[in-house]
């Protein structure tokens, strides 16, 4: 293999074998790191253009040697058939800084700030090393293994009076001192245009924006730390809520990662039901976006029409799963139960209504001349910028790149379905709106195909070590009951190893990277959410625009704050 040879010869990289996802996996020494990244991004043919994710693992929870107290994990993606590549860099001492990757990949900036924030690892020559998710006064670094998982095990979080004043200073316009002629405007944390608690510190000249500084973390719930305290099964409900508009789309990468670790074969009907739910959730998420984006531009109508149709989809999900926004229906090795007998009829009627309603919403948005005037040429993203900031999803497809994980590396039942990946080359907000609508149409087509050819068979893998045993069997024989107890009480987990599973959520490439040590809980769980790199991009995309265009731009990016801050 050319890649392995090059890495091993030139950089003494060591191939690693505990990955269960099949991606090439190498250990690289710290002093080689920047060179390796340079080589992979620039010199190699074909190159790896995208830094998919950068995170760390605190190895001090097990019996790791002191020289490998931390492991930095770099996931690169080729955006082609080769898929991902994992680099692992052992790091000994939290006091010694790690060489920064920002010189190679611009989007490493926020990822390194996150590692600094959550692990306490500093990066040498990083342009802007501040905490990103936690407030500046937070003591400690929560993803380190010595930090307790439950908040109740920590002393209460209190700010002294001087610290409160210090914190409030951030919101005053005198600190940081504005440049002459510029006004500092806080868009957020509470602002109708930011769709939640997110703060942009704008420096304005008139209404034109000179600089944008996104301030995130208001929505941080520590999902990655929470995962370390839960059994593998128990964590599934949290995955719905990471991107709360996506619902089942968030469960997909997580259960897939565990199934990779456990080497579980999922029955085709289970895959079919998962795909079905995922696509319903995708439509509902896109509809919410379409409605709220109209609201950003001052038109009230589309929101109500989009939400009307979304409510139909919610009813459908409720009928199938019992949940509405968050079905939490996926299980490791399958799904919780089979679909009700009359699922087809309901699905087809709902799709009919959604398709009809979509025509209304389309006319009210992309068909409206004022809407076009507000979005054409606004928030234009070039293909080069898209690569620089590692964007994915509709944002990437609006720049002409035909990249969709469902097509590129089919999972679930997507390989059997016939669908197109709509793209555009305009890169502006209007193109993104159009793409959302076209994707809804594609999803409707996929759901119709699923209604026709949903596979028959069981809905859960018959491997009692990792998948739940069938409930009716547990009431009949003691063997299955014991397995059931072991599963529920959290006594067994998948074998040690790690896996990265990438799926296409409604917003882009959503990846879960799970490190298991053989215990009943994840040793480390990393959520690579698409909103994080997309909001990072706003600092560049928002510069030089006027305030109304800024709102139109950030709205068109389709981020979800829970997905951003996790």
């Amino acid at each position, binding site marked *: 293999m050319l890649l392995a040879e090059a890495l091993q010869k030139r950089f003494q990289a060591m191939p690693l074998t505990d990955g269960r996802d099949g991606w090439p996996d190498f250990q690289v020494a710290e002093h080689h790191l920047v060179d390796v990244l340079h080589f992979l991004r620039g010199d190699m043919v074909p190159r790896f253009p995208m830094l998919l994710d950068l995170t760390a693992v605190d190895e001090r929870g097990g019996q790791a040697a002191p020289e490998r107290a931390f492991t930095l994990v770099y996931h690169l993606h080729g955006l082609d058939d080769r898929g991902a590549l994992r680099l692992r860099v052992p790091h000994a001492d939290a006091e010694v800084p790690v060489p920064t990757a920002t010189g190679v990949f611009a989007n490493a900036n926020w990822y390194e700030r996150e590692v600094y924030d959550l692990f306490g690892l500093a990066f040498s020559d990083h342009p802007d090393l501040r905490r990103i998710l936690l407030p500046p006064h937070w003591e400690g670094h929560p993803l380190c293994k010595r930090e307790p998982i439950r908040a109740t095990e920590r002393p209460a979080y209190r700010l002294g009076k001087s610290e409160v004043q210090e914190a409030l200073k951030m919101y005053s*316009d005198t600190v940081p001192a504005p440049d002459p002629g510029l*006004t500092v*405007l806080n868009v957020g944390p509470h*602002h*109708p*245009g930011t769709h939640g608690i997110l703060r942009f510190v704008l420096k304005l000249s008139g*209404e034109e924006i000179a600089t944008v500084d996104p301030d995130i973390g208001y929505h941080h719930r520590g999902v990655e730390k929470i995962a370390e305290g839960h059994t593998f099964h128990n964590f599934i409900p949290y995955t719905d809520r990471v991107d709360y508009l996506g619902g089942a789309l968030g469960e997909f990468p997580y259960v897939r990662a565990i199934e990779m670790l456990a080497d579980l074969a999922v029955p085709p009907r289970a895959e079919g039901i998962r795909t079905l739910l995922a696509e319903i959730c995708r439509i509902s998420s896109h509809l919410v976006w379409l409605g709220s984006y*109209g*609201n*950003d*531009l*001052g*038109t*009230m*109508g589309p929101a*109500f*029409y989009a939400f*009307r149709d979304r409510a139909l989809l919610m009813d459908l999900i409720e009928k199938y799963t019992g949940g509405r926004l968050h079905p939490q229906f996926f299980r490791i090795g399958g799904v919780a139960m089979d679909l009700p007998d009359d699922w087809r009829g309901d699905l087809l009627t709902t799709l009919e209504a959604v398709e009809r309603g979509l025509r209304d919403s389309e006319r*009210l948005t992309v068909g*409206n001349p*004022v*809407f076009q*005037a*507000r979005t054409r040429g606004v928030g234009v993203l070039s293909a080069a910028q898209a690569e620089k900031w590692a964007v994915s999803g509709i944002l990437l497809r609006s720049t002409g790149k035909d990249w969709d994980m469902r097509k590129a590396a089919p999972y679930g039942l997507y390989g059997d379905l016939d669908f197109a990946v709509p793209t555009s080359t305009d890169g502006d907000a209007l193109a993104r709106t159009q793409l959302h609508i076209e994707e809804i149409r594609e999803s409707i087509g996929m759901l119709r195909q699923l209604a026709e050819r949903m596979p028959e068979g069981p809905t859960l893998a018959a491997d009692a070590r990792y998948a739940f045993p069938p409930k009716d069997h547990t009431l009949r024989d003691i063997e299955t009951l014991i397995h059931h107890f072991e599963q529920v009480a959290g006594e067994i987990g998948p074998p040690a190893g790690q896996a990265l599973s990438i799926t296409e959520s409604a917003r882009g490439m959503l990846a879960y990277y799970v490190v298991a040590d053989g215990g009943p809980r994840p040793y480390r769980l990393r959520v690579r959410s698409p909103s994080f790199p997309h909001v990072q991009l706003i600092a560049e995309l928002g510069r030089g625009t*006027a*305030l*109304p*265009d800024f*709102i139109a731009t950030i*709205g068109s990016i389709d981020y979800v704050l829970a997905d951003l801050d996790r």
Partner: protein
Amino acid sequence: MTLFLMALGMLLTTVVLLGLAGFLVFAERRVLGLLQNRHGPNRLGPFGIGQALADALKLMSKENFVPAFADPVLYRAAPVLVAFSALASFAVVPLDRGFSWAGDWNIGLLFILAMSSLNAYGVFLGGWASGSKFALLGAVRAVAQLVSYELPLGLALLAVVLLSGSLSLNGIVQAQWMPYIVLQPLGFVIFLIAGVAETHRLPFDLPEAESELVAGFNTEYGGMRFGYFFLGEYLGLTLIAVLAAALYLGGWHGPWLPGWIWMLIKTFAVIFIFFWLRASLPRPRYDQLMALGWKILLPLSLLNLLCTAFAAALWRLG
């Protein structure tokens, strides 16, 4: 005695107008509900009509709060100015033949334009005195927008004055042997668009622009002071509608029904158009709004005025 009756009458007119504005808030919410596939307020009283009263009570019972960073005098004065200028304009509006306070006043139309300029002051001062950046941005937008759209508005009205030969609203209505919308279709459209901008309502609500400026010029206002702005907005909306009815739609002229009913029907029809616009259109960007005002509406209204003048001159000769 006459003086006392006059004062009583004025009080009554004011109360009726304020009640109307409150009712319009409710009516708008019901109409929007109808147009947007939802119910709107329908709980209090028949059809939810008590909602207007409940809203008024809520606003009146709230604390009259002045932010520490606001200019206290102007902050208090601005909402009054807005409500006053809108209310005063109604003095020259006739409801029926011979039924108005000063419908015969020979500078009635000028008075309305003057009052609408005063209204711009109220909006601007409110935003400026609040001492908040969002409010200031809204105020700056408001003043530019209101000044820009007063030109096409005035020019469109001038064509009506040319046709009728009168500046008093009674005179203009009486001069309409056929509704002027037939003679002035372009003028009517210009008047309506400029009217929406003058009352800064969606789609031209840029001074408030919720998704951009939080609430624009009235961000820092609450309680009854916010209520005055609100009333001023809806009174302004009514004023534009009633002007459209009087100047273009033939005022109280109409078959079978009494004149004042015709006047009301025409006014509410125009108001409904305003609601409808709000339900369906996005907000243009600020520079697009300005471009529309200066580059399209202003030349068009000038052209309209010239053509009207020519036609009127030819009519006289012939």
